[in-house]
């Protein structure tokens, strides 16, 4: 005889009351039902037991039923107690029970628990899940270790389940929907607790790990007794009808282009995107603490733009793009995010005065036009006036310094700047009477002499300050005294002073690029993958030249093997976590930045970067496009599409290498790139970590016209090996059908046969030669570098032994070398090979990318003659960190505990204490500086400083030159 009410008669009451019908039952510790009625302040009253605190304001909703707390899996938390109160915990027996919906599985998940699982120290209990299996973990006095009992059944995401875990002092059981799904007798005796642990709902949290539940919880109960299977079944049966079947999965809407979030000012931004066909897409904006706003005019079009206003500073905003529904299915994009704390423009000055033909405002506009620069740092010399300073600030983004030798003038200047609201934050008056100004070498974008007379500092001193690659010196004088200027200029480099523009009366000098400086235009320096910028200046002793934003907050986690920053023509390009930055390499001024939620790549160890730079353009991959971005302004000037003449439409742009008048690209299957959104480190030998992203097409385009210059189709081209040098393109390609037809376009480590080394003519795409070679030992990764008329292929096997093969690759411009077969007469003849067990032995030592400087090939802890393979040394600097080496001609840079440098001439090995870099390549020598954008984000370590930083060689400074 069944004494329980039927589900149908019970259901309405049960939903209203939850399991409170049982609230007074024996052994009940706590019962938490998540309904809006129970919320208070920043937490919720329990049906029984202690209340809970909410963090990061999770939503508690009633409609549509069931009532629930929604946990997006970010930082929303439910804390019963941050300390462990054993009076709130079960002792020898327990039941933890919940109605829960998991929207995203994870390696570890928690529903309710209090535990510590730290190495050998395992204490407490947890009802949760392991991947897609619900689980119960308990540590008892019997074993003093945690047993994670996982249900034999799997669960589906987005579906409600009744989950329970019981322990009676000798047996653990886990129940799913009232059915026993697993048991274990591994534990026995009272539950063993740690001295401290957070008691939480909706998370797996201990001292050093915190996995948040992405999903929803209706209610949770905790008892000091083990409920019988029949009781649990009855509980499930009584209420199962209250929990709806999952709604039809929304159809995924991926915008054709964008979205991009461009700042207008501190409180507003414009979101732009394109749909593939004309349609009325909307933007759903989640305003924290307010609710969701639907924005859009409902007009059918392909190009969409929404201006977001009244944005609060320092907040994370989330939004979705919504297309018209398809029947019952919603059509929505992924949930994007932007953060208003990533606003770096200078503080606003009062609005510019009307465009008067004369006066300080007009003068300021003319000066800025003549100088051609308007961002960074500017010095105003020559009896500077507040009136002109204020107008320069109004019309530019300069941080302006008025250098005044006469102390008596300073109070009035400061008073005027104060009155204009720009004192300090935009313009400062510095008292300086010495002929040597205190400012850093090469740090100033504009030096302006206001009164037309030669300043009190020398021409050499002015030249010392001006930033290369476009820094300006300007004399604002309609009729400068030529004789005085001639004397002042002397034989300094400024003697090349010219009038700014034809007909202009202002004298101007634009500083050219530093002779001997190099660029870091590709992931590994150049397209040759040498990891060397060929910069001749970065060596010897270095001083800090600048530091500042971006800091760690906008950056991706340090461990994802992220794309390297680039630096070309005095600009530094940094890819944050879906935030792009352009900086001035010489002073760190942020030139532009914006949110690009669809631009992200990780695990470049098994792929290639998505960025390359040439001239004044940054090229970056965005879906099936490659964008050409103005390096100074951030304007998206060029959009190139990946070729699809073969009607392969579901393709993305893969590799990108930019030259002066061409780009080489590759094509990958859609969404084949790694994203690194789960904190991956990509260090272990596992298919989902080491599989190499491959391309089905290699091509060249004219970036000016978009014209496809040539296409190459062969096998599955390993992106991590695409290399260029001396007008040749090299790569490994797999012709194994399993690789070519891999659904995710990733070369699985189980399919490493049938790989060919191929060389193409870069100008025509014509195959020059190919080499069939056994590269199957390169199991962890495959790298290829070019130099000295040879290509070197290297990688490690699963035992972490390096295998390196060097082949001849004569320049297409040079006479063909001889060989012992037809192929090698052209190229592809094995010159040397080498194998050794990795020397570094930790922190991804087996993943080290090589460096080539001149004819020396540096790999792991060794160096070789690149042409002969002769072992030159085995004592490269100790590197404890997870990064890889980068180089200038005279120095190698690396992460040890901190930023590290090996000066090749002096053999000095040093660290710059306090600062570390990330787990791939982020110390780049370019433009004469060592540039180190912040890449240590998320490091739990106590490195004292997390900042982007530039170092200047002392040899480039007055201090260095005076020695």
């Amino acid at each position, binding site marked *: 005889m069944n004494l329980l009410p039927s589900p149908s008669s019970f259901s309405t009451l049960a939903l209203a009351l939850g399991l409170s019908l049982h609230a007074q039952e024996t052994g009940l510790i706590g019962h938490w039902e998540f309904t809006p009625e129970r919320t208070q302040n920043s937490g919720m009253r329990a049906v029984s037991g202690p209340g809970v605190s909410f963090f990061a304001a999770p939503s508690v909703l009633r409609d549509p039923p069931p009532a629930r707390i929604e946990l997006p899996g970010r930082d929303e938390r439910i804390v019963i107690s941050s300390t462990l109160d054993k009076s709130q915990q079960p002792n020898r027996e327990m039941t933890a029970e919940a109605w829960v919906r998991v929207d995203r599985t994870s390696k570890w998940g928690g529903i309710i628990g209090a535990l510590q699982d730290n190495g050998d120290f395992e204490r407490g209990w947890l009802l949760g899940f392991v991947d897609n299996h619900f689980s119960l973990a308990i540590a008892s006095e019997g074993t003093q270790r945690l047993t994670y009992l996982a249900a034999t059944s799997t669960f589906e995401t987005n579906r409600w389940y009744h989950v329970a875990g019981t322990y009676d002092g000798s047996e653990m059981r886990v129940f799913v929907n009232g059915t026993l799904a697993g048991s274990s007798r591994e534990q026995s005796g009272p539950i063993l607790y740690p001295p401290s642990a957070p008691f939480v709902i909706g998370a797996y949290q201990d001292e050093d790990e915190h996995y948040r539940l992405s999903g929803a919880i209706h209610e949770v109960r905790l008892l000091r007794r083990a409920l019988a299977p029949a009781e649990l079944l009855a509980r499930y049966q009584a209420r199962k009808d209250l929990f709806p079947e999952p709604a039809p999965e929304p159809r995924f809407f991926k915008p054709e282009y964008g979205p991009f979030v461009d700042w207008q000012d501190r409180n507003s931004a414009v979101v732009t995107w394109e749909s593939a066909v004309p349609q009325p897409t909307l933007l759903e904006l989640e305003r924290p603490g307010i609710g969701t706003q639907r924005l859009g005019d409902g007009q059918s079009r392909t190009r969409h733009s929404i201006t977001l206003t009244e944005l609060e500073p320092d907040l994370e905003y989330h939004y979705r793009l919504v297309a018209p529904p398809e029947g019952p299915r919603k059509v929505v994009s992924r949930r994007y995010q932007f953060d208003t704390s990533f606003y770096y423009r200078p503080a606003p000055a009062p609005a510019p005065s009307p465009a008067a033909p004369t006066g300080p405002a007009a003068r300021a506009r003319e000066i800025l036009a003549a100088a051609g620069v308007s961002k960074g*740092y500017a010095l105003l010399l020559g009896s500077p006036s507040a009136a002109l300073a204020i107008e320069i600030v109004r019309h530019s983004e300069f941080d302006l310094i008025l250098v005044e030798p006469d102390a008596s003038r300073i109070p009035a200047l400061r008073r005027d700047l104060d009155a204009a609201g720009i004192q300090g934050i935009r313009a400062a*008056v*510095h008292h300086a009477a010495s002929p040597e100004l205190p400012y*850093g070498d090469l740090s100033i974008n504009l030096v302006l002499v206001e009164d037309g007379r030669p300043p009190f500092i020398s021409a050499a001193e002015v030249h010392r300050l001006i930033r290369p690659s476009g820094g300006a010196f300007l004399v604002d004088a309609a009729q400068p005294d030529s004789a005085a200027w001639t004397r002042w200029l002397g034989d300094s480099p400024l003697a090349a002073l010219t009038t700014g523009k034809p007909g202009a009366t202002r004298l101007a000098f634009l500083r050219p690029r530093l002779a001997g400086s190099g660029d870091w235009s590709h992931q590994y320096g150049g397209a040759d993958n040498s990891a060397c910028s060929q910069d001749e200046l970065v060596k010897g002793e270095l001083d800090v030249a600048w530091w500042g934003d971006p800091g760690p907050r906008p950056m991706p986690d340090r461990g*994802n093997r992220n794309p390297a920053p680039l630096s070309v023509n005095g600009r530094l390009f940094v890819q944050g976590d879906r935030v792009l930055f352009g900086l001035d390499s010489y002073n760190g001024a942020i030139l532009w930045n914006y949110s690009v939620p669809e631009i992200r790549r990780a695990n470049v160890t098994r792929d290639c970067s998505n960025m390359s730079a040439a001239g004044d353009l940054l090229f970056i991959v965005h879906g099936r496009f490659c964008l050409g971005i103005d390096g100074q302004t951030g304007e998206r000037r060029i959009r190139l599409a990946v070729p699809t003449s073969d009607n392969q439409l579901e393709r993305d742009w893969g590799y990108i290498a930019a030259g002066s008048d061409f780009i080489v690209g590759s094509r990958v299957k859609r969404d084949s790139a790694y994203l690194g959104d*789960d904190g991956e480190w990509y260090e272990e030998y596992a298919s989902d970590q080491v599989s190499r992203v491959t391309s089905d097409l290699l091509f060249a385009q004219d970036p000016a016209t978009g014209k496809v210059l040539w296409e190459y189709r062969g096998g599955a081209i390993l992106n991590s090996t695409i290399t260029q040098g001396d007008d040749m393109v090299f790569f490994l390609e797999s012709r194994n059908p399993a690789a070519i037809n891999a659904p995710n376009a990733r070369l699985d480590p189980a399919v490493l046969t049938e790989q060919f080394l191929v060389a193409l003519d870069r100008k025509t795409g014509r195959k020059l030669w190919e080499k069939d070679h056994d590269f199957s030992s390169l199991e962890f990764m495959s790298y290829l570098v070019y130099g000295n008329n040879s290509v070197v292929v290297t990688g490690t096997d699963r035992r972490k032994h390096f295998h390196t093969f060097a082949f001849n690759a004569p320049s297409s411009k040079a006479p063909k070398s001889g060989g012992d077969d037809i192929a090698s007469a052209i190229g592809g003849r094995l010159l040397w090979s080498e194998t050794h067990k990795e020397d570094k032995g930790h922190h991804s030592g087996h993943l080290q990318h090589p460096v080539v400087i001149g004819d020396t090939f540096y790999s792991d802890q060794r160096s070789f003659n690149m042409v002969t393979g002769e072992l030159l040394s085995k004592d490269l600097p100790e590197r404890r960190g997870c990064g890889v080496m980068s180089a200038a001609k005279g120095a190698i840079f690396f992460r040890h505990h901190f930023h590290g440098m090996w000066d090749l001439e002096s053999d000095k090995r040093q660290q710059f204490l*306090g600062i570390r870099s990330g787990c791939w390549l982020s110390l780049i020598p370019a433009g004469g500086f060592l540039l180190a954008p912040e890449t240590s984000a998320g490091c739990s370590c*106590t490195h004292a400083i997390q900042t982007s930083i530039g170092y200047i060689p002392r040899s480039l400074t007055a201090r260095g030159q005076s020695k």
Partner: protein
Amino acid sequence: MKPFSSLLCLLGTLASIQATDWPTYRGDYSRSGVSTDPLPPRLAEAWSWQSIHPPQPAWQGEAKWDGWNKVFNMKPRQTFDRAFHVAVAGGKVFFGSSADDQVRCLDARSGKLLWTFHTEGPVRLAPTVQNGRAYFGSDDGCVYCVEADSGKLAWKVRATPRDRRIPGNGRMISAWPVRTSIVVQDGLLYTTAGMFPVEGVHLVALDARDGSEKWRQIQNDLPAQGYLLASRSRLYIPAGRDNPAVCDIESGKRIRVVEGAGGTYALLTDDMLVFGPGKTGQLGAVEEGRSDQLASFQGNHMIVTPERSFLHSDTELTALDRARYLALARERKQLGTEQAALNKKLKALGNKAATESERDSLKSQLADLGKRLDAATQGMDQCQLWRSPSSWQHCLVLAGTTLVAGGTDEVAALNATDGSLAWRHPVRGRAYGIAASDGALFISTDQGTIHCLRTGTTQASLSTPTTASTEISR
């Protein structure tokens, strides 16, 4: 003037004594956050001062998450300059600005601007006022001494041998900015300049009368950022995200770097240094003479009186029986040490049959130790005197018998004896700084606002209690 902790004056009671100044950040060089002045039962806003631009903190904050360890919402470890923190002395309020490079002096009663002094860089830390002079440092690399009454410069000293200015945190500042506060004690002034060990980080002692140098120590491994702490014999130097260094105050020589999870929040009690918040909001306590931690607390700030400790987390304010808690913490640490030693012995024995009896003996001792550890832990839990929910997480001070906590758009006062809420008051922005002096509160927010609350005004009184704390039954 009372640069040293007023706790020494409390003599085991929270009762009030004579009105006192708040001459430096958090009232004294222990950074105790305690004023013996009681607050009147009702306070109202007497005046407020608003900066044109909000504070410009040097550091934006931590990363969004630690992907490897799956730790989200990591605590910013460098929050020393998120508001214009004030010093209050002689009826005047002194503060520096990271936005317009000035130090200002206001009349504490009226809020009227008395004087302003310009430096050539952001002033990120509150001045220290002593003997009629205000001392402060600037990102321009200089230490300044001005007359407190007039703002007239008494002396100015560059803290490093060279004047080299480079772009730093978005401004043209010294390569050796003064990023720690000023300590003046027994006629000497202590401060630091420099952030980057590769450039040298200078710890200097100057004659407070004229700025002449007494000694200089250069650190090559740690930066210096945050508010210096001092005892009679020690200087404690916060090191940004890293752990503080302890130096001999006579010579500046490094004694040790303490262990912990890093951060610039620090508090010195009679016998220990408490600091954090690490990556998760955790304070570590290190006893004098040691480097390792005695105990750690889940929280961001702490107020210590001889009898009680008040622990301030994002969500709770907890009162602890201090003496008992410390005794138990010491016992637990000792037990933990013994446990580790026994475990090491046990591991060394291996699984050989010949060692079975010895292993059994060790296991038995370990089991006994485990029980004593649990008892100590449980005893520590029972040291909670009361616990009160708190959504005012940014700072905490104790004025008389009133705890005042700074939240977002609001400050709240709680009775220190039982945690009951006394009143709340709206402020503009996040209240990162509170100073208490002469029965008044001076609240500094991240919007560049300084609110003064005091009695005797005509404005409406503040709100009354709405919720109560939880008394802990034992």
